[in-house]
């Protein structure tokens, strides 16, 4: 019932997370009405973002075209402490607490066999490669407080502990099953402050 270009756009929008068929339709018809300049600006912004955004070569956070991310580029940050998060958005959450002055490492996910995600799909090798050259003394495991996040933290603790550095996990007290992204600054700040050393229990 739509022309092929319109159908195409509805399909593409519908593939975005959180956008159902109804919303896709509404957005497409909205774009049909806006001036050509506005539509072009949106299209350009998407392409430019794809062309110019890369992953920071140190921490795998999003960065501007081959450069370091703003955190890694800041030489006042403490390079001996690394906070491991699942997602670049989690960096924003931790930064808001104002309690962390080291650098980050973004895994881009958590262990999840049901979705086919094992250690090879995460930026684990990249993390291990940083420990010696950067002189990392403490790794804070700041993955989400749900089943997959806990499993990922434990997996990393077992890999990192033998390397002779301090491995800590943010304190529980965050809403269980939740995402770090939605934790408020105060709770997350307390969880960071109350982090505990992870020891091999075997």
């Amino acid at each position, binding site marked *: 019932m739509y022309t092929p270009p319109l159908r195409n756009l509805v399909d593409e929008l519908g593939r975005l997370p959180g956008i159902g068929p109804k919303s896709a339709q509404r957005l497409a018809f909205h774009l049909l009405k806006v001036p050509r300049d506005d539509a072009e600006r949106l299209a350009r912004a998407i392409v430019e973002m794809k062309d110019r955004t890369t992953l920071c070569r140190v921490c795998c956070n999003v960065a501007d075209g081959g450069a370091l991310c703003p955190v890694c580029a800041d030489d006042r940050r403490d390079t001996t402490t690394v906070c491991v998060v699942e997602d670049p958005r989690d960096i924003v959450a931790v930064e808001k607490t104002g309690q962390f002055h080291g650098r980050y490492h973004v895994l881009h996910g958590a262990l999840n*066999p049901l979705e086919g995600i094992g250690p090879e799909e995460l930026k684990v090798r990249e993390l291990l490669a940083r420990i010696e050259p950067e002189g990392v003394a403490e790794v804070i495991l700041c993955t989400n407080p749900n089943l997959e996040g806990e499993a990922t933290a434990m997996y990393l603790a077992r890999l990192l502990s033998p390397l002779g550095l301090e491995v800590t996990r943010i304190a529980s007290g965050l809403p*269980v099953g939740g995402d770090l992204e939605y934790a408020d600054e105060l709770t997350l700040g307390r969880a960071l402050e109350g982090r505990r050393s992870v020891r091999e229990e075997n």
Partner: protein
Amino acid sequence: MGLLRLDLSSFRIFASTVFEPDPGATTVIVGPNGTGKTSILEAVGYLGTGRSFRGSTREAMVSQGASHALLRAWLEVGGREVQIEAEMAKVGRSKVLINRQPARSRRDLAEAVAVSTFSPEDLVVVRGGPAGRRDLLDDALSLLQPSAGGILEDVDRALRQRSALLRQCRGRLSSEAEATLEVWDDRLGGAGQKLIELRRGLCHSLEAEVERAYQSLAGDDAQRVQMHYQCSAEGGLLDALRRARVEDVRRGVSTVGPHRDDLQLTLNGREARSQASQGEQRCLALSLRLGVHRLVTAQLGHPPILLLDDVFSELDPERSLRLITELPPGQTLITSAVPLPRQVEAASVVDIAQLRGHHG
């Protein structure tokens, strides 16, 4: 607590009907088979649990030709009136309002309308495979232990993650796969062990209640009832998972864990599943539900609504009589297609034909 009034629209064969049982005593709904008696209990059960005790889909419960069914109930809970309204959609989301506020979880519902249900299908709990017995324990735990819901979810998810990983191994255990399997063993071991302890504790407290119910139903034929939780993991679950690792990888499934456990039921030391008569098995199936009902009553401080579907056809006349004379206090709704024992006449009786003819 008690149900004061239930309004049904477009639910099963009821275009529109009003059911007003006795809120503090027993109401028997009588009528031939296939006339909708069980549907009334099903509707009450749905308001308390968010699902059909017959295992029916919403598509089957909404009347033909309608897109939604509307279930409205007024209850008396601790001296206050509570209104529950469920809009059941054939497809898509259904919504349930408790005093006009959306219910967020099954626990919300269970707290507003607690129900205990017995139906003829419960015989499979005694005679069938272990899954039915595990469900009996887990359903009771969700009502009795606030922490049980989260633990059950964690166990289910950890088990599915571990099983997915085992399948991906395709029979071979590389050292990398082993390192990830270890963390899932740990997750499943932790949550699974908690579930095992909860189930064991429940078996322990349930045993005396089930035996009491069994003996009051069985009369002269009183037998000792024992409930023994059979754990697939010897020692701790975590150690058992580690020991089973090679075998699990070879077979691609988790061979130990709470999902492989069973509840052994015995009557005077005989295995009820294989060695009891059908009459004894029926009596035990009902006793299990009555036992859970008593524990939940103690926990809530008031009895849940007891729903007994077609219970007289399940029991011989003496047992039927003993059931009705020794029913626990509170509201009980019973359906029956067979003539009632004489003593039931005191209770209120509703003919299903009246409900079907009602256009309120």
